[in-house]
């Protein structure tokens, strides 16, 4: 499938380039879009103020990465996760993480079956195409790691038997900010497995008025229908990989990674996994913007989502703003 075909699938129906590709950067680094989500019938009424976030989330899935949504309770993290799963037309399971959860609650257990006289494996909620892991940082590290292992390997080993997970397989995790009570913050190594982390933020006044005047969210959610079939999604993922990244652009991504490694502002620079991810998401963004090649702008727009959760500032107590990290990098690395 070429990118034109991808456009015909995605753009007219749901996810056209509402974020203007020529928009100045200071707008691109925040997640407050100015225009409402118009074309997608599903999206229009559910999360009209968060089209940029949705586009980023979609880019993440096209780049075959996992998504982490972090924000305060009540801004619509879970709803976004639900909407994504629904629109993609994939099987999905929602797991609410709690502090007393055990790995078996996610992966599944073997139960003795009296009829057959043997143990039979009851797969856990992870055996699905989309796992919505709600409030992942409320579970203990042991349980978190069970999920995160599955994310990286795309398979689960229980009692010696390795079971592959379905294709495609996404984890959309939501988490509360680390300073909330009762959270077990994810360590850097596990944060690195999430390709993108997005923050939703409060809706703008117009969007909030719309939200308040609208129907009940749960009802609307159940009314959503899928935009894509799983086959189409896999084709789109393949198309994403074919988006052209010119040598100059690859140099640019490399320069960004090199800068984060050399600059003293962060504890450690971007890993090669992160720079690979950055390029993949930029490709997906270019596809969603209806282009067959990646522009530096694509990299710059997706940069906050890719680097924010990976770079820990040295002066952590100062808590630099989320957009600050990315714009600092962007303004420090000249285009090659």
């Amino acid at each position: 499938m070429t990118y034109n075909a991808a456009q015909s699938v995605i753009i007219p129906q749901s996810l056209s380039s509402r974020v203007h590709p020529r928009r100045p950067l200071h707008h691109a680094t925040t997640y407050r879009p100015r225009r409402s989500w118009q074309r997608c019938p599903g999206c229009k009424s559910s999360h009209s103020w968060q089209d940029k976030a949705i586009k980023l989330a979609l880019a993440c899935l096209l780049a075959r990465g996992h998504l982490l949504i972090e924000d305060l309770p009540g801004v619509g993290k879970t709803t976004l996760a639900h909407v994504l799963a629904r629109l993609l037309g994939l099987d999905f399971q929602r797991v609410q993480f709690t502090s007393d959860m055990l790995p078996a609650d996610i992966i599944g257990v073997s139960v003795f079956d009296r009829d057959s006289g043997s143990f039979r494996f009851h797969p856990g909620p992870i055996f699905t195409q989309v796992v919505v892991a709600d409030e992942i940082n409320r579970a203990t590290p042991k349980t978190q790691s069970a999920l995160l292992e599955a994310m990286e390997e795309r398979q689960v080993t229980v009692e010696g038997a390795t079971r592959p997970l379905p294709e495609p397989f996404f984890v959309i995790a939501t988490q509360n900010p680390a300073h909330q009570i009762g959270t077990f913050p994810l360590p850097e190594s596990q944060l690195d497995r999430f390709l993108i982390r997005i923050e939703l933020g409060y809706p703008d006044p117009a969007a909030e008025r719309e939200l308040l005047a609208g129907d009940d969210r749960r009802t609307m959610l159940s009314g959503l229908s899928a935009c894509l079939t799983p086959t189409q999604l896999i084709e789109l993922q393949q198309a994403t990989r074919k988006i052209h990244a010119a040598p100059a652009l690859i140099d640019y991504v490399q320069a960004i990674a090199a800068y984060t490694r050399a600059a003293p502002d962060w504890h450690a620079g971007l890993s090669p996994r992160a720079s690979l991810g950055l390029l993949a998401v930029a490709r997906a963004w270019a596809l969603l913007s209806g282009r067959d090649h990646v522009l530096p702008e694509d990299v710059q727009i997706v940069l906050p989502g890719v680097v924010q959760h990976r770079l820990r500032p040295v002066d952590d107590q100062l808590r630099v703003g989320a957009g600050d990290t990315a714009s600092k990098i962007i303004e420090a690395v000249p285009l090659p």
Partner: protein
Amino acid sequence: MARNNRPVSQRQTWWLLAAALSAFLPLSTLLSPWLVMSATATMLLRGWMTWRQWRLPPRWLLVLLTIAATAGVIAEYRTMFGRLPGISLLSAFLALKLLELRGARDAMAVVLLCYFLVLTQFMFTQSIATAFMACVTVLITTATLAAATDDRPAPQLLLRRAGVLLLQGLPFMLLLFILFPRVQGPLWGLPQDRITASSGLSDSMAPGSIARLSQSDTIAFRVQFEGAPPPQHMLYWRGPVMPAFDGRSWRVSRTSAQRTVPPFRVTGTSQNYEVTLEPLGKSWIFALDYPDKLPPESAYTEDLQLLSRQPIRTRFRYSMSAFPDTSVGADETASMLTESLQLPSGGNPRTREVAAKWREKYGDNTEAIVTEAELFFLRQLLSYTLNPPLLSEDVIDGFLFESKRGFCEHFASAFAFALRAAGVPARIVAGYQGGEVNPVDGYLTVRQYDAHAWTEVWLKDRGWVRFDPTAISAPRRIADNFAAAAPENDALPFLARNNMAWLREVRNRMEAATNVWNQWVLGYTPQRQREFLQGLGFKSPDWQEMTATLAALCGVVLLALTAWILYQRKSVDPAFRQWLKFTQRLGKRGVQWHVWEDPLVFADRAAKALPTHAEPIREIAGAYARLRYAAPTHASDHGTPLAHLRARITAFRP
């Protein structure tokens, strides 16, 4: 200027502190303790202030401190001028300047002071360690200089940048080192007053004066032989000759060095060698018996001491040939022979008595008397020791008949005395005996503990003949070395004995490295420079030629660097160069392109700022972005879109 008023950031302050400390610490052994302590305290305090982000002290306090430091230096040295007072003042000012870092200009002053202080340590010592320390300091200071303009990069990045800068300077450094016209003499003609009087032989020999040297393993000189070195027992390095005896100590006579040609004719086989003499502050030039030619700037005295015209204060290298079969002094002057027979009127009666018997028995047969004396020394069963007992009066009687234990000066002194008492002209020769071949580089290393004294006896028809009475009682001293001859329980310098093989190995390697450094870096004198350049094909290099070559080669290096930079520039993408031209034009109209800005985003902004040109701006930016970032449409007409872009940009006149 605004740039100079830019405040010094915290990170820059740390850099400056590091540079100042690294420049100051190597000097701390030279400066007086009060200065070292107060300057270090000031720097530590400055570090604390930086950490706690305190305010800098007021100006009046700094003025007071500066006056106090100056007064302290003047009180210490009685002057403000000279090497040590100057360096003390600069160190104090460096510490105080750190308290006054108000702007970039102050930071620059600190950096320059650091560079200068690095230089000053070479006025005192020029060892490998000093050079290494100086390199470290220069690296840190250069990194500080880099941090003064941009302190954001990580420390290791700044250090690397500084290292690259220094490496780029390396070709220039080598060129300057090799070709810069040399002046004879120590560095900048500065007096080398740190040579202590205790190092090396002196012009008199009393009991104990050479034994004192036996505790020092300082290197006296190094020798490189052409071919295999002669056997150990031939290595008599002749130094001061002492014919005058006052009953206790022997002295050199007060004759001036006159002869620039040896007063004898050399015969027999020869051995070529080259000596590198450490600066001992004395005039003696040590050589094997007997040379055919004298080194430059040196002369022979009547009693065959080889003297330099000036005391040797820098490392001195000379090539010599030794003709061991040469006989000297067969036609010695009567006055010299008379001097070699003089004895004080009284003292040492028992020795005189024995000598008188020899005289009686053999009359004028001096050779027989000498043989008799040797036999007498053998029969007395004298023993060789580093710790001879102290003898008050009649030292020679005491040694020969009572204690019977002595060091080489006792042996030589007693032998010469006995022969003089028997009417045979004899004198003491001091110098070094033996040496140790460093297996690493093959140089023979002669140390202070190889100092030795022996006698020369004048025999009719044969002239002056060397007799070493120490060899009679302690043959291993001559055949091997003094540590082998010394009794087991005598205190010796560390590593003088053949134990601790691995430690000796380490020392051998370090000394070989030092030797290379001495020979090629410190010993790169005008003479060696001339030899080296002649080896490179210069016929007779004079300073004009060297300067011209220097300038030409520096020019070549500069050209090479420039060419390299230009080559680097050529590898800039041609489309990007067009884009830069385009953005420059827009920049003149007030729309600046940031180097990180996406072309399309910039075009959007520019189009809004210049609505009349919106269309061409968007088109050019779009064409450029496609050219740069899209997949090439056809490999064959890759040139066409670029030519198109170039034409568009050339035509574009905002």
